[in-house]
Structures are given as C-alpha cells and as structure tokens.
C-alpha cells in the first residue's frame, strides 16, 4: 500500500511539472535570500574582526592623552615603574603627497619589536623581504601600501616626497605593507614607519597613544594610579558605538531576510495545502480502500520533506551565490559609513549553510504540517464534497480573522511597553504581520463580494463568476493572497521607510548647512585669528562660523566635540528635546547639547550631567537638549567655542563656514577665497551643494542593499503568486469544461480567468497598502529609532505605494496568461467524459 501511495504522489507531481518547479523555485528563493543575507552578514562581521585585529591587534586598552599627546617617558615608566607587560607606542598622523597635495595619507609610527606581541607584525608585511633592522635603525625609511607603490610607480629604495604641514620631507621606501583594502580614493593601509622615524618626520617628541594588553586587575591597577593628562580606555569600548550601529544594521538585514523566508513559507504552505486539496478525492478513495491516517500523514509529510530538501538545497546554493554580491554591499555600507574604512570579505563558516538548510527544511515541514494533517483526517465520504471543504475553509478563515485581534493586541502591548529593545521591536513587527495575514482570507472574500456587482456590470456573467469564484475557492485563493500581500507590503513598507528617511536627511542637511562654503583641515594652527579676519574681509563674504572638532575618549566610547561660534545665519539646529532657550543657554556657556543618537543610546535627558575629559581633568557638563543628527560618528556634543576654550585651553580651529552675500558676484568671491587658500594647501574646500550631494550619495549607497532585498522579496512574492494562481486556474479545468458546455464562449472564459487572477492581484495590492504603511510606521518609529537612535517623520510618497500595487497586478496578470490561453483553446469533451 505504501508503494501505491508513493506512486500516486509521484504521478501527481509528474503530471504537474509547472506546479512542482514553481514551488521548488519559490521556496529556494526564500531560503536563498535568508542564507545569502546570513552569509553576507557573517562574512562582513568576520572581515571586520580581521581588520580590527590587524589594526588593534590584541589590544585590550589604550592610553590616550586627554588634551595633548603622550610623553615618551610615560611609555618607559609603564614598563619600568608600573610593571606593565604589554605596551606598544603608536604615532598616528596625517601627511599629504608632495606630488599631489590633495592626497592625504595616514602615517602609523610603531615599534616593530612590540608589534609581534600586538598585531602579529608579519601579517602586515607580505614576503620576507622587509628588513626590519633597517626599518628600525635607518632614518627616513618606511613601508608603503602596495597599491600606493604601484599607483606612484615606485620601486623599493625609491624616495617619496611627503608634505608635513607645508614642509616637504623625503622618505625612502624599503618595503611594502599589505593593503587592508582599497577605497575609491586609494589604499586605506597606512604608511608604516618606526616610531623614531615618525617622530623625526613630524618633528615631535611625543607619541599619539599607547596600546596595551591588560587583564582586569592590571587595568584596575593602572586606573588607580590616576596618571595625569591621560585616560585609559577599553579598546572594545572605543568602537562600541560603531559596533552597535553595525550590529543594528545587520539585525535589520537579518529581519528582512527572514521576511523573505516567511514569504517562502507561505509559498510552501500554499503549495502543500493545494496539493492536498487537489487530491482530496484520491485520498478519500484511498481511505475508503483502507489506507490509515498515519500512512497518509507520512506520505504527505515525506512529500513536503523531499520538496523542501530539494528546494532548500537549491536555495542554499543560490544563497551562496547571492552572498557573494551581497557581502560587497554589506561591507560597503557598514564599512564605509560606519567604520570609515573598507574591509575585505572573509570566507563564511560551513555551519551557516547547515543552519540555512535545517531552517529551510524545518519551515517546509512546519508549513506542510497543517495540510498533511488535513489529508490524514480526510473522511472517506466527505472527501468527495468540494462544497463542504470550502464551507469549512470559510469557517477557518473567519476564525483566523478573529484570532488576529488578540495577536494585534499582543503586538501593541509589546511595542508600547518596550522602549529600547530592538528584538522586541522586531517581534512586534512580526506579530503585526501575522495578525494581518490571518485577516486576509476573510478580507479577500469580502472584497470579492464587494466588487462583484461592478464586475458584473462591466464583464457580464464572466465578471460575476470571477468574483464569486474567489470566495468559492477560498481554500486555494486565501493563502496565496495572504502570501502576496505580506510580500508586497514588505516592498511597500521598506520603500516608504527609505524614502521618508532620505527626505529627512535631505531636509536635515539643508537646515544644518547654513553656510555656503565649508573649509576644514586636519593640520594644526592653520586658521589663526588674523587669517579668519582676512577671510571675512573678502568682498562678498558676510561672515564666518568657526568650529573646533575634536574626538574625546569617554567611558562610553569616543565622542566628537563640536565647539562652535555660530555664523550670521545661526546654528542651523533642529532641536528634539530641550530646556527652554537651550541654544541661548548654550551660547551663554550654561551647558551643552548632545546629538539625538547619543541621547537615545545613553538615555540622556535635558538636565542630566555628562562627564567629559577636559584639560583640567574630568568635568561634568549640563545637557540642555538634544539635536537631530544623522551622522554615524558615534555621538556628537555641541558646545560654544568659548566654553570649550575655557576647559580645554585650546585656541585652535579646524573648521570654518563661510557665508556669502547673495547679492554680490558669487563666482568672483569664490575665486578670491580659492586664491586666499593657496597659502594653506592642507585646507579642504567644500561647497554646501557638494556636501549635500556627497551625503545623499552615501545615503543611497547605504540603502542599496535594502533596495536589493526589497527587489528579492518582490521576486519571491511574484513567483509565489504566479505559481499559486496558475495552479488554481489549471485546477479549474473541469469547472471551465462545465461552463463551456453550458454555453460560455472561449472569450468569456478568457475574461473570467484573467479577471479572477487580476482581482486576486488587485486585492493583494490593495491590502498591502495599509499593511505596508503600518510596516513603514513600525520601521520608522520603532525599528530605526531602536537601531540607530534616529528619529524621522513618515512621508507617504506615492512611488513605493504604486510600485507595490503594480507589482501585485503584474504578477497576477502574468500568472493569468497561460491558464487563459489554455482555457480558450480548451477541448471540452475529454474533460467531461466521465461525468
């Protein structure tokens, strides 16, 4: 009997190769998206770790100066007086190429002997040709990134001119450094020098920082020494905020990929339940012949297992391919945007493939469980009655619609009562999706009923039959519509979120960038008071804002201080939470403003105190409010320049905003400013338009991967609907034959088929609009805030909405074409022969 069952099942699928292939491909695609994103995320994460360990090595802590650099003697004292075992001195400073003064490079001065303990120095150096004794003991020698060598056409032992400030110095290249990666601007690997050579190059007697490997008690001992003017920071904390962003970003991607898998699960559910529904008669007969329930259950589950396994295997392979392209995108986004350095991908672990496979097969089995039980419970006598099945389906659908109410409530409670947890946010989102899914079969029925009169008016009996057919075959159409709705809603929701986000960033940039030109430098003492006065005196310049940017180490990671004297058009801030007159109070040195992500992450409220390491030791500053900031620098603190100067004893400026008179000759003024800048080649000139354009292109770059996932989810949805609708229409062969026999002409049958599939597509598209908007709202007000601390407003742009509906309609119309053609060419007699 078992053999018989298997033969019957095999025949069933062999007779419907289309149905089988589409199901397999749909599931495979769902699995592929999940596996692809998972692999890409993992690869990216590991690549970051590799890069971080190349740069930070096994560094656990760092000693950094709170205001100035670190004296050489502190390094010696660490070893000789304080018994620190692993310490490595580092000088990190910038130079420019003498041959191309726009090209900035980082110089890393290190002690190669200490590097063996920290960074595994040999991994920096390809081959064994590098002569380390020479690097240490010969003045002016350096290792160059390989790409820079070939770019500049340099050979070993060639000289290279570098600009330090405005003074040209020569170094001799005695070896190469393996590039960590390349960006559009060239190598990101630094020029490596011995620490002595670096001091001589920069004419300094200090070092930038000391990298340390400490255990907890050693770290405590060192902290208790309370060394003056230095701060011990945890190397992990230093990038903690960046890690958090990258993690949030990856969680978002994983959630999106799960959504794709979810659509895949719908698909298998649709396929399996459909395959069961189609064979109810066969099962009924089999039951009547004495096949017991367990055997039927086993056969149905085995079918699901086989289809699931084949599809998942295919999905894993596809996912592997997909990961290759995705990983570049993930790395670009998380790398460029958050870490400001590119990283190369790493080979993913085999476990992820296994995980993807197990997940794919398990979800297939879970999705098939209900139809399989259904098959097993087929009663011999009821199996024949299609009408009875549809009645019970309607009942189930109505019950499901009722269940969606408590699920929605649970989602609301979860989202309302958690404020920070990203995971709970996602669970809430998934619950909302689940609740909507449960509503859809009933909604489809209601929708069909509502449009029936209109269809009848337009297409006559075909239209009316199309609408009624939807309710009448709810067991087939319900799940398909639900799957398509979720997929399309995802496409709409993400589209709305991204476009709202982009609009918010654009508005924020326009509001913040009040000046016309921004000048910045990484060199010291470039903008003296007299230089700024000269700048102000240029014809057509109506004023300047001056800013000091510094990075300060805090216990919660590195933060940026933006100390500013505002220009003639004010601060350009968009405040979120504030004490009254926050800006005035900041100007009168009563406190500071913090960026929104920083406030969110650290739970800072107006009135709180934030300790910062100043030149006079740790000082607490009152928070007056928070401002919108879409920068990903880990957190910004805004204060008045005079407050900064009081605490940091630092008169230097590294940013100037220039305001131009709108009535004067702009071109002329700009060219005068350019001439003025010739004296100081280290100053970077950027127009506001340029910054805005650049920022938005980075934004688009960041969301490229989201777009890719959106398209993939759309594709899964498309396939799902296509296969489901086609199966429905093909299954209607006998119905069509009856209708033809009753006198409907082929054209009418064509209209009936096509309008029925289009109707389902339209229903999905329409249902997807509110669900998509709800998803966008959750993504914007819950997920994004919890991931990045960014607030923004929902903007209902029409493009994503239209795109979603069009996607659904196109899929359904395309899916209707083949059955329509088939129905038109239909030969009635054979189908009705056994009636």
């Amino acid at each position, binding site marked *: 009997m078992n053999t018989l069952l298997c033969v019957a099942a095999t025949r069933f699928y062999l007779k419907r190769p289309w149905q089988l292939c589409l199901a397999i491909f749909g599931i495979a695609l769902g699995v592929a998206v999940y596996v692809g994103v998972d692999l890409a995320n993992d690869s990216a994460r590991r690549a970051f770790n590799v890069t971080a360990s190349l740069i930070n090595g096994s560094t656990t802590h760092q000693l950094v100066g709170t205001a100035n650099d670190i004296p*050489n*003697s502190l*390094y*010696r004292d660490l*070893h*000789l007086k304080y*018994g620190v*075992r692993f310490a490595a*001195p580092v000088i990190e400073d910038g130079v420019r190429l003498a041959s191309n003064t726009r090209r900035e490079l980082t110089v890393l001065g290190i*002690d*190669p*002997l*200490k590097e*063996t*303990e920290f960074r*595994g*120095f*040999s991994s920096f*150096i390809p081959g*064994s040709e*590098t*002569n*380390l*004794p*020479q690097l*240490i*003991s*010969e*003045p002016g020698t350096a290792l160059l990134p390989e790409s820079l060598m070939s770019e500049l056409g340099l050979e070993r032992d060639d000289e290279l001119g570098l600009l330090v400030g405005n003074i040209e110095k020569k170094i001799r290249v005695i070896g190469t450094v393996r590039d960590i990666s390349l960006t559009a601007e060239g190598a990101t690997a630094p020029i490596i020098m*011995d*620490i*002595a*050579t670096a*001091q*001589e190059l920069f004419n300094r*007697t200090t070092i930038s920082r000391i990298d340390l490997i400490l*255990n907890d008690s050693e770290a405590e001992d060192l902290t208790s020494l309370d060394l003056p003017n230095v701060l011990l920071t945890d190397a992990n904390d230093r990038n903690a905020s960046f890690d958090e962003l990258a993690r949030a970003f990856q969680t978002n991607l994983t959630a999106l990929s799960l959504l794709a898998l979810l659509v895949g699960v719908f698909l298998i559910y649709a396929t399996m339940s459909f395959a069961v529904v189609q064979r109810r008669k066969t099962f009924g007969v089999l039951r009547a012949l004495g096949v017991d329930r367990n055997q039927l259950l086993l056969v149905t589950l085995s079918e699901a297992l086989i289809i699931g396994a084949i599809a998942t295997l295919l999905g894993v392979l596809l996912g592997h391919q997909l990961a290759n392209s995705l990983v570049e995108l993930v790395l670009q986004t998380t790398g460029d945007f958050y870490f400001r350095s590119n990283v190369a991908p790493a080979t993913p672990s085999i476990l992820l493939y296994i995980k993807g496979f197990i997940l794919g097969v398990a979800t297939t089995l879970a999705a098939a469980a209900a139809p399989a039980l259904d098959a097993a419970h087929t009663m011999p006598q009821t199996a024949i009655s299609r009408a009875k099945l549809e009645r019970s389906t309607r009942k189930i659908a109505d019950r499901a619609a009722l269940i969606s109410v408590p699920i929605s409530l649970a989602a609301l409670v979860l989202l309302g009562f958690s404020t920070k947890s990203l995971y709970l946010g996602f669970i809430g989102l998934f619950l909302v999706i689940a609740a909507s899914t449960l509503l859809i079969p009933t909604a489809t029925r209601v929708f069909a009923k509502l449009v029936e009169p209109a269809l009848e008016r337009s297409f006559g009996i075909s239209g009316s039959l199309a609408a009624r057919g939807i309710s009448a075959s709810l067991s087939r159409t319900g799940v398909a519509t639900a799957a398509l709705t979720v997929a399309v809603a995802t496409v709409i929701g993400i589209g709305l979120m991204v476009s709202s986000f982009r609009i918010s960033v654009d508005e924020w940039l326009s509001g913040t960038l009040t000046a016309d030109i921004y000048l910045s430098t990484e060199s010291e003492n470039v903008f003296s008071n007299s230089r700024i006065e000269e700048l102000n005196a240029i014809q057509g310049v109506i004023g300047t804002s001056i800013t000091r940017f510094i990075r300060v180490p805090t216990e919660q990671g590195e933060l940026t201080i933006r100390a500013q004297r505002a220009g003639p058009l004010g601060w350009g801030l968009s405040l979120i939470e504030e004490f009254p007159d926050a800006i005035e109070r900041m100007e009168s040195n009563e406190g500071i403003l913090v960026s929104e992500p920083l406030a969110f992450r650290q739970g800072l409220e107006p009135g709180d105190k934030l300790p910062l390491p100043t030149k006079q030791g740790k000082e607490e500053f009152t928070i007056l409010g928070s401002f919108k900031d879409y920068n990903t620098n880990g957190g910004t603190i805004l204060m008045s320049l005079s407050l900064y100067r009081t605490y940091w004893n630092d008169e230097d400026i590294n940013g100037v905003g220039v305001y131009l008179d709108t009535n004067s000759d702009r071109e002329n003024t700009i060219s005068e400013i350019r001439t003025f800048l010739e004296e100081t080649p280290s100053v970077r000139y950027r127009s506001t338009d340029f910054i805005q354009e650049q920022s938005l292109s980075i934004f688009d770059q960041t969301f490229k991967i989201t777009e890719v996932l959106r398209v993939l989810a759309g594709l899964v949805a498309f396939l799902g609907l296509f296969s489901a609708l086609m199966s429905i229409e093909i299954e209607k062969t006998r119905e069509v034959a009856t209708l033809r026999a009753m006198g409907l002409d082929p054209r009418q049958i064509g209209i009936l088929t096509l309008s029925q599939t289009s109707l389902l597509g339209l229903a999905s598209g329409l249902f997807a609009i509110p669900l998509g908007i709800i998803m966008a709202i959750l993504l914007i007000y819950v997920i994004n805030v919890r991931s990045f601390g960014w607030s923004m407003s929902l903007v209902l742009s029409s493009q994503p909405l239209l795109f979603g509906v069009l996607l659904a309609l196109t899929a359904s119309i395309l899916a209707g074409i083949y059955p329509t053609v088939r129905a038109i060419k239909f030969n009635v007699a054979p189908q009705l022969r056994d009636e």
Partner: protein
Amino acid sequence: MNRFLILATIILTSCSEHHEQIATQIENATEFLGESVPEGFARVTSQRIFQFPEDHGSHEDYQNEWWYITGNLEASQQRHFGFELTFFRYGLNANTTPRKSEWAANHAWMGHLAVTDSQNNEFVAVERFSRQALKLAGTQTTPFKVWLEDWFIYGNKDNIWPLSVNANSERVGLNLTLNSKKPAVSHGDGGVDQKGPEKGNASHYYSFTRLDAKGTVRIDERSYQVSGSAWMDREWGTSSLSPDIAGWDWFGLQLSDEREFMYYRLRTNDGQSSPYSGGSIILPDGERLNLNASDVFLEPLKYWTSPETGATYPTSWQISIPQEEMTLTVNPYLDKQELNLTVRYWEGAMKVNGIRKGQSITGQGYTELTGY
C-alpha cells in the same frame, strides 16, 4: 656555548616547515633578526684576555651578545624547579648616525624566561623584546647591570657578586641571588670559540659554571623559597652559521665530584658532528681541560615529540669521554621543556647519573637542543 647560532638556526629550520605555526614563527624571527651579517660589525679574529668588570657589559661593536643563566633549584621537601633567564642583544646597524628622536635605536633586545616545575609536570616560557632606547633595555658596567624593561640582572658595586636576578611574567617569576664558587672560565682557544672554517666565524665565550643560587620562584600566585646551583654564560661575536650545520646540542652539567662539563656538538645536515664541536671540563680548582670533537661521544637514548609543534627532540643522552673514563646518562626532569617562542628550541633541566673511573657520580645541569 653556541647560542649565537640561534639566529642561523632560524633560517635553517625554515627550510623544513613542520607546521604552519613554525613557519610564522620563523617568518617573524627572520624578519626581526635579519638574515645576513651586515657590514661594519667587528669580528672575533684574535685571542682575548677577559677584563672584568668591563667584559660583563656590552660589546656593541659586535653584532650579537648574550647573558645566559640556567639553574636547578630546590624548595622544601626536595621540590625541584629549573629556570632559564637570558638576555640577547642584537646589533641592528653598525653605523651610528646621531638621531633626534629618543626612540632611535641601533640595538634590539630579546629576553627569555622559562621555569620548569617538575613536580607539577609544568613548563612555562615567555619572551619579550625591546629596543635599546629610552633606557628600556641595555647594560651598564659599574655597577654591572643588564636589563630588558623590568627584567634585570645586576651586580654589586665593585665585583659583580652577589648577582641579583629578577624577572616576572604573568605566570612565573624569579628573584634570586647568585654567588660564584669558581672563577670565570674562558672556553676555546684563548677565549676564542671557533664555529667554522671561515675567519671571524667565532665568538668570545666565558662562563661561571658553579653559582650558588638562593631566593624565590613564583608559579602563579605561590612563591617558593629555593636554593640550588646555577650557571652563567657570556658570549659575543659577529658570525653566521656555516651552511652545512643543521643545529647543535649543548650540555652544561654540574657533577657531584665538583667538576663541570660543557660540550656543544655542532650537527651537520647529515646528522654528523662537525669537527668544530668542542667543550671544557672544569676541575674542582677551576682549571680547565679542553675537549675536542674527537674526545666526546654522544648517543641519543630517547626521543620526545612536541605535541605543540610536532618537532622531535632527543631528550635523553649517553655521553662518553674515554680519556676521562667517564660515561654519563643525562635525562630531563621533564620532556616538555620546549620554548615555543619566536625562536623555537628545547632547553631543559637535566639530571645526571654516571661513572667516572669506576666511581659512580651524579649531577644536574641544562641541555639545549636546536635545529630539530
């Protein structure tokens, strides 16, 4: 002793990569230490009468130099410990152009600290590196001091004795006072130890072969009061190993009849002893008998394969010196005494049993095995 050859061994072993890890070690080490003898360093070409305390300090004209102390110690209830503390100086550049930075250095230092805890079957070895700059590492003559960060050996103002030895790492630490029972002994021919046929392929080599040691050994959180006997080698020169030498086996043994035995066998690539192998027997009164390659017969008795690196070392030996009618069996306190550091070698505490002129003798000491 032939530890200067360590540099060359690194290059040699790189030809027979056991292990990826070894390959990285070798890569590190060759890059760190350089491959050939640079121009400008002095070579050992003539005999030398050692002058103290001056010769205890650095000889920076020569490229390589070390201070090497090994010893066997005992805590209460005859609990045995072995230790090794070494300071290597390596000349990076013979030209000494004056430079502005305080970090500028022409010498690099490498230190090894190893402790053998026989009772617990435990061996801990650590290394550290530093440049000779900012007073991070270096030597001084009066009072004698050699240091690498906070590891140091320092002597008394006039004479170097008693010598204080102090080195700590996370897991082990040493704090010992050493007193010499015998005067310094010059090895080779008038303090010149020839390593190969090439002129200048030689070193100046002297030893204190019997030092009373007292102090503490720390293993993790516990310190043990110990006393025992140590050995100090001093050697410097500028040379590379002859191409046909694969490594060496060195023995420094203190015997119960108040004699000491030092012998190094330079092993050729085909496993034979090089004619440039040699050693000394130091008599109870401090007099020295010269040993040539033909005077000493070595036979490995037992091999041990390191689970960490896969290298196989002959750790038990039979040593015969027919002219002295002496046969010694040398066994390690512990097989696991491999220093798996940037430079990989085996150096371990040994116990000795044997017969000399019909009398049974015992003893202890250290063995160094390289090029395996």
